[in-house]
């Protein structure tokens, strides 16, 4: 049974490339959302195995979306990985306090993205 991943990012191109990467390299099923709000709805509806969450988004940003996901018991258990271009250590400290599973950096290697996610979540 292939894993189902929800990708939440406001950048169309990044969504497309990341989705293509997970689908063609790992054969996973991918659902996408272009905002925090849409991400909440899609998470509720599709119940993915993991969520890849961008940090800098207009409206509801990554951390806020994450907190909302945790507030709702229906989505609270889904593991969340941040996928972000904010790589400075001051940012890292902020993220660590959030309670996400891990932080992956942009740009990423499309050939190993799925491996990275599996590694963090302990999937085979």
């Amino acid at each position: 049974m292939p894993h189902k991943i929800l990708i939440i990012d406001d950048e169309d191109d990044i969504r497309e490339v990341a989705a293509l990467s997970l689908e063609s390299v790992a054969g996973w099923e991918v659902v996408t959302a272009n905002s925090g709000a849409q991400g909440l709805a899609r998470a509720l509806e599709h119940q993915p195995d993991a969520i890849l969450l961008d940090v800098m988004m207009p409206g509801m940003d990554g951390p806020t979306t994450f907190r909302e996901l945790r507030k709702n018991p229906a989505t609270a258990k889904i593991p969340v990985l941040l996928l972000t271009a904010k790589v400075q250590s001051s940012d890292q400290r902020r993220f660590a306090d959030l309670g996400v599973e891990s932080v992956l950096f942009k740009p990423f290697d499309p050939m190993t993205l799925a491996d990275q996610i599996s590694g963090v979540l302990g999937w085979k």
Partner: protein
Amino acid sequence: MGDPSEEIAVAGDSQPARSVQSGVLILWSVLAILALILAAGAVALRLLAGPRFDGLLMLAACLSALLLALRIPGWKPAAQQLAQPPQAETLQEIPDSSGPALVAVEQIATLPQEADLREPQEHGRAEELYRQQQTLLDAVADGICGVDRHGLISFANPAVARLLGAPAASVTGKQVHDLLHGNAPANRRCGEECALRRAVNRRAATTGEDNIFRVDGSLFAAEYSLTPILEQGRFSGSVLSFRDISQRNALDRLKDEFISTVSHELRTPLTSIRGALGLLSSGILGEINEKGANLLRIALTNSDRLVRLINDILDLERIQSGREPLTFHSIELSDIVKQAIGDMLPMADAAGVQLLHDTNKVQIDADPDRLLQVLTNLLSNAVKFSTPNSTVSIMLRAGVSGVTLSVIDHGRGIPADKLEAVFGRFQQVDASDSRQKGGSGLGLAICRTIVLQHSGRIWAERNPIRGSTFRVFLPYHPVPLEMPAAVPDNEPGSGTVVLAGASAEARLRIAAPLVRHGYRVIETVDVEQTLAAAHNGVEAILLDTSLDGMNGWEILPLLRRLDPEARTPVVLLSVENPQSSSGLPGAKPPGVAGWVARPLNEDALLRELTRVLCGPGEKARILIVEDDRDLATVIGGVFSRETIAVELAFTLDEALEKCFNFRPHLLVLDIGLPDGDGFNVVDWLRQHESLARLPLVVYSGRDLSTAERRMLTLGPTHFLAKAKVQPQQLEALVLTMLRSSRQMEEEVAEAPISKS
């Protein structure tokens, strides 16, 4: 009759008034002594002759009390004398207000003597200097306070009251710490560990940053500097200066935000590029023909390179700016080595390179993450430049003061003339194939910055047979460096002088006034040090004629050998006119640019130094363009001496006319003139070939944008914010520019001239 203490306090009165003063002083002294004698007599009479003389006793007591009460409080003149910090060396003994009557009488007796000894001209000049200093102190934007030996503010310039939002009169008499932190609201009060409090108590020279609280309880971030004043070795007070750095802090925060934003903005599109290229290149989406695959590979490699470059630039900027301070722990260096090797293993395996390390264990204080970054970088370079089936080794050697770490490869090696250059930014040994290796050119620059921040050293060596060895020396206990820790630029002509062979007392008399006037002083105690210090960038050498073990005269030829073109002037500090001791009447001894006789006069020293620095021959000409007449006169006064001719221009028309007729060597320009502005002057100057490269000091009331600065630049141009610059800075800057422009003129004069 007025309060005699007030009359005495006014320095620099004209001669007739002063002799009246002296007369008054003597009169009072006599009266005071008489009163004491009377009092003593009355007491004796009372004791011997009984109550009949009570009246007399009372009268004598009242008279003495009256006289002494008028004389003892010497605090007013004392405070005013403290208000002239640059003349701290010549402070007179301040009458101690709690001393016994006899002491006060003694001091009354001594004061007239000193006043009488002064020449009238010197007194007039002292008054002039005093007024100039007052004007300058009033104009300066930093708060400057004189603090007495008890820690009380004895003097404060107008900026202090302004910065604190306090009425001017309320500042003096307060305790320093109370002034700055006293108005903190209850929840922000500082305790025993307050750095400012400790600095004040320690009486040592300190600078620091702290919050300062205004009278209304609001605060601002400030940078302060506390300098003790020593009078003949005894602490007699300090000078406190502070400035509001909220704007600077705000700018720093803006810069950080900018860096963060830029980093993010650059990475976002790169993510799509990298992702798309990676997928295409892998062939997973379909076969691509050979040419197409090659192109994709090129695109992919370069986008990777771009990512690394962005990372490195931000890294370097972040580290160098000190925004990410190192956190030092006691670490086991071999652990870091093993971790670095572990991280590099995949890359090394792919390249067919074996990574080796020794078993030495060394403990040092260091920032483990940063050191890991250095090691990873060095290993990465070593592997990149190694051939397959070769080895890269890391060795540790513990020394006396620290450990030397070596990364040894057997690759292509670095040419001997590039061993230092590789540590520069964007330096690659061999541009063409290094680029293939994907380097950003910043890795070693980053390594060096980190190593420097550990008080260490990093350098490269060629191996005897083949390859390179990069060595890093790290002290066991690094002394934290001041940020920024990048290798400082060598500023030639920044007003550095070497002071050779002065005794401790002479150093105080010579070095201290020089430093106050903005010169940087390198002190040397023997011949070797002097020769070592006399390198490029030193403006002048002040040479005592008797340096340990060697006569100053013997040093001269050695200096000349180092500096055959006599670019660095030598000024002899001597007991008598060197002409007489060298036996040559009239002529200056060869190799000596100037001399100053002992006992040293601060003004003579500075005059001589300036004369020597401003070059031989004609006077230097400065044109000051400033519409505030008072300020213009003051600035002009700072520079007027026999070697410099100063002209003032108050309007644009005057400025233009004088530029043409007076032909200044340097222009001090105020941006806002009444009938036009500084921009017009500069434009006009630019159109005239002979004036188009004029050195400029632009003095403006507001900060100028980069575009505006570009429009205002002719030749070497410096920008100063009005009232934010210390007079010594202005002076030192202008003198430096004059000297540099003289050198340039000489060089230009040798080139063929097209127009006179």
